[in-house]
């Protein structure tokens, strides 16, 4: 059957995707989230200093991978609703609540979307939590999660190096090295490493610039 879009608009329709690496890890006292900074459109890096760490609420962040447009609009919807609910209820939302809102949007609109989200943050009830919301709209709570095209290179690394209840320093090293390695191996990921540490005191953001990234096995 003749598809107008496919025949005439194929170039214009190449979505801006975040070929990406994102990670979120729980540690003793909170979560650390990290991401690379490349947004690509085909082989062109549209933005080499992207901030993929998107705030949803005071102590809840989300990591976006997939179509940039889809993930941006959904995270702004969830941000809107978490803010509205927190005013209505008089208390801050839990990470579980925000994650389930993501799930509702992703699942109900799955035909139209190409979005995968990791929702991570700190709340007084569960402490640090990480929820993974992959492409189909399912939701699963995990001690750590990775996402994006670069995450395929990190499964072995994570399985071997993750420990429960790490200290903040250990967890920070864990994510920084992970993103660094994915940037080295994955063409869709690049640039700098952006990190955020979320605990009961709030959010602390850090950046590791390209020249400071540790070099692993390289000739």
């Amino acid at each position, binding site marked *: 059957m003749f598809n107008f879009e496919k025949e005439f608009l194929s170039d214009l329709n190449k979505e801006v995707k975040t070929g990406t690496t994102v990670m979120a890890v729980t540690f003793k006292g909170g979560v650390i989230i990290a991401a690379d900074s490349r947004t690509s459109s085909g082989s062109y890096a549209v933005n080499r200093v992207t901030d993929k760490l998107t705030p949803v609420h005071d102590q809840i962040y989300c990591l976006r991978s997939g179509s940039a447009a889809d993930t941006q609009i959904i995270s702004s919807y969830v941000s809107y*609703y978490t803010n509205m*609910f927190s005013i*209505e*209820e*008089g208390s801050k*939302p*839990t990470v*579980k*609540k925000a994650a*389930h*809102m993501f799930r*509702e949007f992703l699942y109900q609109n799955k035909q139209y979307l190409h979005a995968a989200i990791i929702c991570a943050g700190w709340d007084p009830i569960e402490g640090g939590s990480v929820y993974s919301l992959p492409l189909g709209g399912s939701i699963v709570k995990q001690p750590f999660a990775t996402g994006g095209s670069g995450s395929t290179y990190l499964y072995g690394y994570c399985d071997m190096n993750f420990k429960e209840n790490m200290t903040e320093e250990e967890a920070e090293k864990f994510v920084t090295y992970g993103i660094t390695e994915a940037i080295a191996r994955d063409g869709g990921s690049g640039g700098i490493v952006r990190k955020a540490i979320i605990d009961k005191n709030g959010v602390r953001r850090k950046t590791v610039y390209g020249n400071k990234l540790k070099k692993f096995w390289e000739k």
Partner: protein
Amino acid sequence: MSGIGTGYDLYPTTFSPDGRIFQVEYAHKAVENSSTAIGLCCKDGVVFGVEKIILSKMLVEGTNRRVFSVGEHIGIATAGLTADGKRIVQNARQEAKNYENFTSDIIPIHVLTERLSIYVQVFTLYNYIRPFGCSLMIGSYDEEKGPSLYCIEPDSVALGFYGCAIGKGKQEAKTEISKLKLSEMTCKDAVKEIAKILIKTVHDETKEKEMELEMSWVCKETKGKHKLVPKKLIEEAVEWVKGQENEED
């Protein structure tokens, strides 16, 4: 037949010169014609009691319900036009379900009350739909926050109460309730006290026919779930009330 509000009482869209909306006030009158319902906020839960007038011996006991569950954890007791009450309960159930689907948490009672209040208020704005002719008492029990009791009137005002009564005998009931020490009372005791108020104070045996007691509770014992009070407990409470009468004689 001219009354107080003549000329200004045809539609809810008209204010009277002294700033009243008579249609909403008439809706209150509909509530005052109905039999009494009481809600008590005790130290370990909330108990509802409704005086149901038995209109016919052919009616099956336990039908014509006046208390409803919303979600598993919230109870609503109605007074006034029962059909109106059921409509609002339907809306409440929708709200609770949607909230739960969206956020994976059960709806907090103060959020539900606020939303029902807004819903009821809409019906006081237009001339083509009438206000609801019922009052609702909404109660819930939470491990952390404790028991909560709210009352929504036809004018959509929602207030939080320790003890509340709506319907025909609300004045006498409220007087009796104010004598009770609610913060020290358990739900089991409240069942007896409510039975006493409804049977002795509110129900007029000479004027009205027989009554049936419908009681429900949300408390620590039911683990925060809204359930009908077991029939045995109600029978024991009625016995206790009869015993009290004999003592006083």
